[in-house]
């Protein structure tokens, strides 16, 4: 997987977490995974279709989600499954939305779908084209994982235009 596809997600996650939680964040670990992905807590999956296709999973422990929800709300939030799900989905929305904004500005065109909570115990299998990069980010609320698996489907617009001009 190309770094140019990954970097916007790292930048966006860093910016969104730092802004939302009003504190600096730190990347603890960054690994490639070809095996089935097994969630670490509650995971939101967002599918991406277009010039690049794949999916991004944002994954965090329920207690981390409650801590994030409280930080976002500005006051303690009572723990509940709904709050946890809502928090994970909204965080995923913000990170992926900001990431695709950066990728779009780089010439990629695609559509982002609303997040789905991923609860399968079986995990999601990868393949050669969709090997995943897993990023562990340390925040004041705890560790948040981003699992990114994407591949090129089409050349981006500026490359298509260049080729067309040469033809």
């Amino acid at each position: 997987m190309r770094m140019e596809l990954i970097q916007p997600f790292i930048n966006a996650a860093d910016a969104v977490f730092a802004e939302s939680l009003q504190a600096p964040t730190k990347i603890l670990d960054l690994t490639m995974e070809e095996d089935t992905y097994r969630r670490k807590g509650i995971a939101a999956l967002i599918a991406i279709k277009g010039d690049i296709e794949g999916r991004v999973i944002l994954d965090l422990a329920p207690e981390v989600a409650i801590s994030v929800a409280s930080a976002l709300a500005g006051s303690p939030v009572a723990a509940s499954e709904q709050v946890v799900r809502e928090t994970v989905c909204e965080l995923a929305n913000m990170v992926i939305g900001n990431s695709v904004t950066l990728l779009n500005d780089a010439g990629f065109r695609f559509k982002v779908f609303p997040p789905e909570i991923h609860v399968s115990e079986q995990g999601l299998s990868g393949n050669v084209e969709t090997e995943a990069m897993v990023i562990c980010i340390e925040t004041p609320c705890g560790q948040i994982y981003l699992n990114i698996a994407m591949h090129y489907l089409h050349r981006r617009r500026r490359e298509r235009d260049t080729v067309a001009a040469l033809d």
Partner: protein
Amino acid sequence: MQQFAPLLRSDNQPVRYLVVDDSVFARKNLIKMIELFGGEVAGEAGDGLTAIAEYNRTKADIVLMDITMPQMEGIEAVERIVRQHSNARIVMVSSVGYQENILAALQKGAKHFVQKPVKPEVLYEILRYVLGDDPNAPSGPVALAEESHR
């Protein structure tokens, strides 16, 4: 917590807002900001279709509209609301903030755009501008949208 002077309508009544987002969590955050600005929530919706029905019911002064939602996305909902109510004041609130999206929303009739995560002070200034209360605001929606990217 930051204090804001209340944003009021010309008749000195609180501004009434319709909050549209498929995330309950995001709606709660926006409602908290609306309360900070002295506003009133006229209605809520979790998708574009419900937003149209809620706008017809409430005729809210301001609509805060997400873009990516199930059933009907925000930009289509903007188009349908503005087609029926040309004076509707709609501010897009989305994490997806690339120029094509912003321009599409503005072309369909949205007045402005703010990117998530929403900073209260940014939303406040945009609302002042959209409500026509800030003669010193930048000259247009796109100018402000571009500033938010820097």
